[in-house]
């Protein structure tokens, strides 16, 4: 049982290195703007509101940090009748 665990377990040193590389890339870059996601969310909401009616609570913006790229997830819930109302 113990022997099995020993062989199946991943070496944690490599995980430590990968997590640090991602973290530090962002630590080094993010000394300026810590409010970035909040600002993006507000501006995206404003841009969409010009064309359709959306509930502010139904817009979610998430930033997932990665290397070599980070991904910005924008999730907007649009009600069925929103387009007609705005028009």
């Amino acid at each position, binding site marked *: 049982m113990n022997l099995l665990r020993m062989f199946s377990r991943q070496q944690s*040193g490599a995980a430590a*290195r990968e997590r*640090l590389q991602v*973290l530090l890339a962002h*630590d080094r870059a993010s*000394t300026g703007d810590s409010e970035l996601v909040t600002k993006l969310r507000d501006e995206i909401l404003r841009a969409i509101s010009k064309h359709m009616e959306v509930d502010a609570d139904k817009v979610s913006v998430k930033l997932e940090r990665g290397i070599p790229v980070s991904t910005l997830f924008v999730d907007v819930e649009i009600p069925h009748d929103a387009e007609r109302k705005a028009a």
Partner: protein
Amino acid sequence: MGKVIVVTSGKGGVGKTTSTAALGAALAQNGAKVVVVDFDVGLRNLDLVMGAERRVVYDLVNVIQGEAKLTQALIRDKRVETLFLLPASQTRDKDNLTPEGVEKVITALKNAFDWVICDSPAGIERGATLAMRHADVAIVVTNPEVSSVRDSDRIIGLLDSKTLKAENGETMEKHLLLTRYDSARAERGDMLKVDDVLEILSIPLLGIIPESMDVLRASNVGSPVTLADGRSAPAIAYFEAARRLNGEALPVVIPGDKRGLFGKIFGRRAA
């Protein structure tokens, strides 16, 4: 004119004080005139590690406030006669350290000693930034562990922006001292590798100090590990680091490394 070294790390408990004492004693044993300065005002410990806790009369804050002369506050080591300690204050707080006061003391020490080694407090506040402010060389003490590496990265950023050297457009000479290195854990793959840490922090390696009971034993008896048992593994590693500080190009051997003679001869070299 002596060289000013700051021993710093950001994170606490990684071995700044142990390393300050061990390197200071190692340099002094080779005949250099060395003073180790405790910047951890309020939480002094260098006196304890050096075994001079019962001989402290005046401290760094007394000198800065003009209550004592520098020569009155310096404590000469009983074992190595070219080694001196300037203790921190235990009762005052770090607000008593003024930039002007620190500058005056460091300038005076530089004129009298070959090496002025400043033991920084943990953190990134006043005590730590004043300890690094006048440094010519920085030793970044890091454990092969995620939180220590992250904090070291932050400290390297401060060394490159908040020091006199940085403000004058010069680059601070920085060295990595990897401490509490556990070769058994490294062999199992459960520790950050030396190369990983070097690649992430990208500063040259000054030495690797193995995790060892000898370090604890030395601090128990109030002796720098290089004086307590000069032939122990950590002491040898500190002696070699001291020689690299002096400019010698000694190769760094990873503790417990199973390379043969060939591998050791052609092993990594200190950058």
